[in-house]
C-alpha cells in the first residue's frame, strides 16, 4: 500500500469541475443529487434561524429565553457542568477530568495490538490505581466521593471502558470454549452466548440493579455502579465472544499445525499464535462493538444512574429552567456523535497502521 498513483479514466481529473461533471453522469445520480440539495436548502435556513439567529446565548434563568424565541443556549451554559459531571461534587470536577483522560489514553493505546507489551499492562495497573485514587479520593487529602455520586461523561466513559475491557477478558475463554473440541465447554459457551444474546440489555441491567440486591443477603450487595458494570460485562462478553470466534475460525489451520510442530502446547498456541491473528482480523467488528457499548450505556438511565444522557435528562427538572429538552438532547447528542466518530476514526487508523506494519496489505 505504498503506491498511491492511480490511473484515472480519460476525461477525469482532480478539482471541482470534474467532480461536478462526475456527479451528473447518470440521470438517477442527477435526480438524487438535486433532491439532496433541495432537502439541505429547505432544512438549513430554519435550523440556522433557530440555532443561531434567534438563539439566546446568556441568561440566568428561563425568563431570559422567551417561549417564542429560538434555541436557549443559556440553558446549556447554566447546566453544562451538571450534564457533563452529574452529581460529582462541583469543586472536585478536575479530578474526574484527569482520571477520565488517563483511562481514555490507556484504552487508545490498548486498541493497537502492536502496543501489547508488559509496559502496557503495567500502565493499566498504575493508571487504574491513579484513577481510583482520583475518583474515590479519601486519601492524600482528597475528599471521599461515593461511586453513587459519579455521573455524566466520566460515568459514560468508565461504563464503556470497563464493559469492553472486562467483557473482552471474559470473551476470550468463552470464544476458546466455543471452538473447543470438548463438548462440555462448547455447550456451556453456546448456552451462555445464546441466553445473553436472546435478552435485551435493558432487562439485564434491570435484573442486575433491582433483582441482585434482593437475592444477595442484606449488606452483601455490591454498589449500584458495580452491579451495572457486571450487567454490561455479561452482555458485552457474549457478543465479543461471537466476534472473536469468527476470528479464531478464520485463522488458517496451518498456523495450528505449525505451532504444534514447534512443540507449543495449547495455551501457548492460542496466546502466541492464534489469538493475536484473530484479534487483528476482528478489529473492525470490535470497534463497532465498542461504539455499541458506548451508546448502550445510556440505558442505565432506567436504573436512575446519571450517565451523560441521564444527567442531560436530570438537567430538565430544574423549576427555574422548564422545557428546554431540545437543547439538552442536542448537546448530549453532539457529544455522543463526537465520541463515536473519534472511536471509528481511531479504529481505521490502527487498521491502516497494522496493515502497513505487516507489509502485505
Amino acid at each position, binding site marked *: 500500500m505504498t503506491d498511491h498513483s492511480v490511473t484515472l479514466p480519460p476525461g477525469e481529473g482532480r478539482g471541482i469541475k470534474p467532480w461536478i461533471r462526475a456527479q451528473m453522469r447518470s440521470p438517477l445520480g442527477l435526480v438524487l443529487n438535486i433532491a439532496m440539495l433541495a432537502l439541505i436548502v429547505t432544512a438549513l435556513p430554519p435550523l440556522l434561524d433557530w440555532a443561531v439567529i434567534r438563539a439566546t446565548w446568556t441568561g440566568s434563568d428561563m425568563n431570559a429565553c422567551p417561549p417564542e424565541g429560538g434555541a436557549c443556549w443559556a440553558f446549556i451554559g447554566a447546566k453544562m457542568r451538571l450534564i457533563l459531571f452529574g452529581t460529582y461534587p462541583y469543586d472536585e470536577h478536575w479530578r474526574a477530568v484527569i482520571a477520565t483522560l488517563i483511562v481514555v489514553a490507556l484504552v487508545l493505546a490498548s486498541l493497537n495490538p502492536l502496543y501489547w507489551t508488559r509496559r502496557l499492562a503495567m500502565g493499566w495497573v498504575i493508571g487504574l490505581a491513579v484513577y481510583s485514587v482520583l475518583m474515590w479520593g479519601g486519601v492524600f487529602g482528597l475528599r471521599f466521593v461515593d461511586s453513587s455520586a459519579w455521573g455524566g461523561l466520566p460515568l459514560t466513559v468508565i461504563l464503556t471502558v470497563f464493559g469492553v475491557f472486562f467483557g473482552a477478558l471474559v470473551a476470550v475463554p468463552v470464544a476458546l470454549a466455543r471452538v473447543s473440541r470438548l463438548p462440555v465447554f462448547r455447550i456451556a459457551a453456546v448456552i451462555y452466548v445464546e441466553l445473553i444474546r436472546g435478552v435485551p440489555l435493558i432487562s439485564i441491567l434491570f435484573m442486575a440493579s433491582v433483582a441482585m440486591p434482593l437475592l444477595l443477603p442484606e449488606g452483601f*450487595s455490591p454498589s449500584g455502579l458495580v452491579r451495572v458494570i457486571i450487567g454490561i460485562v455479561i452482555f458485552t462478553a457474549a457478543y465479543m465472544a461471537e466476534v472473536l470466534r469468527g476470528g479464531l475460525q478464520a485463522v488458517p489451520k496451518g498456523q495450528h499445525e505449525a505451532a504444534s510442530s514447534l512443540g507449543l502446547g495449547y495455551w501457548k498456541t492460542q496466546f502466541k499464535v492464534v489469538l493475536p491473528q484473530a484479534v487483528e482480523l476482528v478489529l473492525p467488528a470490535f470497534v463497532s462493538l465498542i461504539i455499541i457499548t458506548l451508546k448502550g450505556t445510556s440505558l442505565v438511565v432506567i436504573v436512575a444512574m446519571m450517565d451523560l444522557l441521564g444527567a442531560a435528562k436530570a438537567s430538565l427538572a430544574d423549576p427555574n429552567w422548564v422545557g428546554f429538552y431540545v437543547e439538552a438532547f442536542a448537546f448530549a447528542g453532539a457529544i455522543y456523535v463526537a465520541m463515536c466518530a473519534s472511536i471509528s476514526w481511531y479504529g481505521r487508523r490502527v487498521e491502516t497502521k497494522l496493515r502497513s506494519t505487516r507489509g502485505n496489505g
Partner: protein
Amino acid sequence: MSLRTIAAAAILAVTGATAAHADLLDDIKARGELSCGTLNYLPGVGFLDDKGEWSGYDVDFCKAAAAAILGDPSKLKLVALTGPQKFPALDSGEIDILSRSVTQTISRETTLGYDFIGPNLMTGQGFMVRKDSGVTSVDDLDGATICVLGGSAQERYLAEYFAYKGMTFTPVAAEGGDQMYPMYFDGRCDAVTQEPPYMAIRRLRSGQADEHVILSDIISKSYEAPVIREGSPRLREVLQWMHWGMITAEEMGITQANVEEMAATSQDPNVRNFLGTDGNVGQDMGVSNDWMVNVIKAVGNFGEFFDRNLGKNSALGVERGMNALHRDGGVLFAPGWQ
C-alpha cells in the same frame, strides 16, 4: 438430610437473622450516614441544581432526617431511584428511607409491610383545557382526548374516574412531561392531566398562556409520605415526630434564622422543652436533645420547607392550600410536645 431438617434450618436462619436485627435507628447511628432514596427528575420535589447538588422537597426531608438522627444534614447519601426500583431498594436495605413522592395508600401500608411518615404533601390530580373549548368542569370532558403520563397512578385514576361517571375518553400516554406538554399545546389532546402546579409552569412556558385554563376540580387524593420498612418502631417515632416538630416550629414562630437564638434565650417553657434546652425529649427517643434545633437549622419549619421548594419562594409558586397549618385553613396539625 431430610426435607424437614432443611426446612428447620432455613426457619432457624431466618428467625436468627431477624432476632439479630436491631432497630434501624441504631444501625444508622453506628454507620454515621443516612441512606435515602429519592428522585432526580421532578421540579421542586427532587432534582439537581446547576452545580449538581440535590435539591427539592423530598430531598429536604432526607436532609432533615439526617440532621435529626446524626446532627448533620450532610451525613446523607442520596440515591436516585426510578419508579420500579423504589420498593426493591427499600426492601433490600439499600436505602433506609424512601422519600420519593410515594402516595400513602392502605394497601401499601397493610400488605407490603411499610410504615409511612406524615403524610407530608397533600396534592391531587387536575386538568388543563383550552379556554375556547367551553369546558368548565371535568364532567364536560365526556368523549375527550386526554394527554396523561403513561404508567402513572394518574393514568389509572383517570380511567377509574371516567368509568365511574359513565363517560368515555381517549387516552394519549406520554413518557414524560417534556413529551406530554408539547403534544397538548400542539392540539393533539383536548385536555392534559397532572398535578396543577406542574400544569401552571408549563402553561407559563408555552407562549400561549392566555389560551388555557386549569380546572378547579381535583379528581383524586394524592397524599404523599416518606416510607420506611416495618420493624423499626424507634426510627418511625423519630421521623414522625420530626414531621410534627416542623409543624410545631411553624406554630411557635421558630424559623431557620431565629432557632439558635430561641433555644438560648426563650423563657417560654414550651419552646425550651421543644428545642431541648430543658427536659430530655430527644434522649428518651434515641437522638440528641437539641435534635429539633438541627432539623430547623437544616431545612426550616414546615412553612419555610414548603415555600422554598414548592411554594411562594420557588418558581412553581404552589398555594399552601391543604398543606397549611390548621389555624390557617389547612389540615396540618401536631400533637402536644409534653
